[in-house]
C-alpha cells in the first residue's frame, strides 16, 4: 500500500490541482525531499506587499489540514514581550483554523486554505499598523 495520500487518492489530487490552477495559477506544485506535496507561490496584499508562501500537505491528508508557511519574507508574530507567538505555531506555520467556527468542510481544497491565508496576511498588516496591539477577529488562544 502506498504511503502518500495522493497515490491512493488520485481523485482528490485532481480536485486539488484543478482548484489551484483555476484560482491561484501563479502557484506551482512541488515534491519535497521527504515526499510531501506542496504548493509554492506568492500572494499580493491590497497594500501591494508580496508574501511567498508554501502550502504543505501532511502525509495523512485529508485527515489533517494543509499547513501554510510564510517563507519570504520570513514572518514571526510575537507579542510585545517578543516571546509568544500569536496566530502562528512554533514551527512558523500560520494559525488558520479556529475549531469552533467550523470554517472548513469535507470538500475544502488547498485553494480555500490559500484564500484563508490571504485573509491572515490582511490581519497581519492590520496588526502591524496598530503597533502590534490589535489583531482583528477571534483570538483562538
Amino acid at each position, binding site marked *: 500500500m502506498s504511503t502518500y495520500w*495522493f497515490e491512493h*487518492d*488520485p*481523485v*482528490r*489530487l*485532481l*480536485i486539488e*490541482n*484543478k482548484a489551484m490552477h483555476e484560482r491561484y495559477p501563479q502557484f*506551482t*506544485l*512541488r*515534491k*519535497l*525531499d521527504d515526499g510531501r*506535496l*506542496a504548493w*509554492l507561490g506568492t500572494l499580493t496584499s491590497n497594500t501591494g506587499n508580496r508574501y*511567498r508562501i*508554501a502550502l504543505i500537505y501532511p502525509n495523512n491528508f*485529508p*485527515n*489533517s*489540514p494543509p499547513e501554510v*508557511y*510564510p*517563507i*519570504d519574507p*520570513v*514572518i*514571526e508574530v510575537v507579542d510585545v514581550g*517578543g*516571546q509568544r*507567538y500569536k496566530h*502562528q*505555531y*512554533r*514551527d*512558523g506555520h500560520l494559525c488558520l483554523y479556529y475549531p469552533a467556527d467550523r470554517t*472548513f*468542510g*469535507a*470538500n*475544502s481544497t488547498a485553494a480555500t486554505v490559500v484564500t484563508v491565508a490571504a485573509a491572515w496576511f490582511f490581519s497581519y498588516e492590520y496588526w502591524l499598523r496598530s503597533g502590534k496591539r490589535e489583531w482583528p477577529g477571534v483570538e483562538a488562544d
Partner: protein
Amino acid sequence: MASQRPVTTLEELKRQMEKGQEIQVDQEGKVHIPDDEEVQKQIAEGKKVSKVKPQRWF
C-alpha cells in the same frame, strides 16, 4: 523559548521549497515531472481534467 523561534525552520523550509522538484498532475491524478513523456503527450492531445466528484474532508 526564544531558541524555538521559527526563523531557522522557515528559512530551511524556504531552501527546501526552492529546490523542490516541480511536478504536474496528469488526467488520472498521477504526478509527473514536467517533461515527462506522458504529460507531454496529454498536452499535445489537448486533454484536460474533466469533471471530478468531490470527496471527503476531515
